[in-house]
């Protein structure tokens, strides 16, 4: 939520549409192997986010409001990524090469650094450690692991890109900027592992040579599919 007295121009009417002009949800879901069951849960989650009230649904974790909310949002995503790569490194897929192990271990460490950074920075305002649900991922298969990694990394990039405009404090914006380019390096690396040269292909980059930006509600819908903990972003800034 920026200071309205500074932002004199009203919000661009098409801004929400622009946010939504991202890789289609369906595509993401199919990449992640999520069925229609989760879709139903996703729709209801969306309703919460767009709802009028700011009452936290029972059993849900409130990410909070303002910059703290955005930092918790980032913390949640980093928890998810760190847990995923920790598992990938612990139980390597069959046929993994030494070079792949080195890259995936580096990425795990980066995500752990991000996670611990947010935890410490948030202090008492931090959301709890989240419980993840990776039951849909076959960690023994290279294709499944890398497809999930790709989806997480592209999602992470779009999440930070979309969150930038929601941040009030210049220093937090810079920190998000410092992290998002590393996530983009990961995304390109994972994509190249899947298919060399797909680091920035037209399935993710638009005709202006630009990456995606996703609003928290859209990102949380997808992230929720990998969590047993329920996240609630209804108090997050909308602009």
């Amino acid at each position, binding site marked *: 939520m920026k200071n309205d007295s500074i932002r004199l121009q009203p919000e661009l009417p098409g801004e929400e549409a622009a946010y939504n002009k991202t890789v289609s949800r369906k595509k993401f879901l199919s990449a992640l192997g999520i069925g229609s069951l989760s879709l139903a849960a996703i729709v209801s989650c969306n309703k919460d986010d767009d709802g009028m009230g700011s009452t936290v649904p029972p059993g849900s974790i409130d990410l909070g409001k303002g910059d703290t909310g955005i930092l918790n949002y980032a913390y949640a995503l980093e928890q998810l990524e760190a847990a995923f790569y920790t598992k990938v490194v612990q139980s390597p897929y069959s046929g993994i090469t030494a070079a792949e192990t080195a890259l995936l271990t580096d990425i795990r460490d980066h995500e752990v650094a991000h996670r611990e950074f947010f935890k410490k920075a948030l202090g008492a305002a931090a959301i709890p450690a989240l419980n993840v649900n990776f039951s849909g991922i076959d960690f023994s298969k290279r294709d499944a692991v890398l497809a999930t990694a790709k989806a997480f990394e592209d999602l992470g990039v779009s999440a930070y890109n979309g969150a930038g405009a929601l941040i009030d404090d*210049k220093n937090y914006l810079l920190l998000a*900027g410092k992290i998002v380019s590393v996530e983009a390096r990961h995304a*390109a690396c994972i994509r190249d592992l899947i298919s060399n*040269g797909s680091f920035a292909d037209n399935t993710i980059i638009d005709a202006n040579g630009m990456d995606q930006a996703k609003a928290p509600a859209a990102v949380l819908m997808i992230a929720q599919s990998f969590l047993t903990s329920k996240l609630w972003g209804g108090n997050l800034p909308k602009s």
Partner: protein
Amino acid sequence: MNLYQLFSNMEKIDPDIYGRIDSRRKAIRNFAGIGGRLTLAAVPLALGGLLNTAYSQSAPADITGVLQYALTLEYLEAEFYTRAVASGIIPAGAPTGALTTIRDHENQHVAFLTAVIRQLGATPVSKPTFDFTAGGHFATVFTNYDVLLAVAQTFEDTGVRAYKGQAGVLMSNNTVLTAALNIHSVEARHASHIRQMRRARTNDATIKPWITGKNPGGIDDDAVQKSYNGEELTTQAGIDLTGFVSANAASESFDEPLTYDQVIAIVQPFIKQ
């Protein structure tokens, strides 16, 4: 996000939209949503300082100034890759494919930034004349593939740091900030891939898709080193990351910004005029 498209669609839906706004706004038709009054006030200043010069003498303090600066860097990259792909020294197949993809993105960034600057009512800076040998320093840039990739990597990593350094100035306009972030992460994807290409060429395991310490990745060159100095931080916002991960991982996990002055010092040798 195609802003141009967005505005032209808006006009189609409501052809009279520009007629109903005041004349000052009319003068900057197609500007809708980008600048707001805040930028409008800053435009004359930006015009005075930037028109007909490749870049300003001082750090940009407003949105238009940042976009002109970004445009200059994108001109540099776009022409570099255009000449690289045409050089005849890039191996066919994946390498030519990758550099062509990057070339196209940089040209798209030039077109996008040019359009946005015009929408803001300013005149885009003209393309400088470039010397990619940097006065002979990289004499073989278009005849030696490894030198070419080293220069490419330096441009990409510098580009990432340059955009990052301007985020704060763009905060007053969400649309422009988001667009800049969406370009910034694409430059990081490029950097990751170029580094992977260099790794494949040299088989040097210390060349990674991310920046370790302030290591330029096997490029022993004072000019290149300037693009990596300051990347070695392992403490962020007062939090020491080496408490959680190795020093290498700590430095890799956050990319650092460069100031306008630092970037200009890096690219100056490549700009003849």
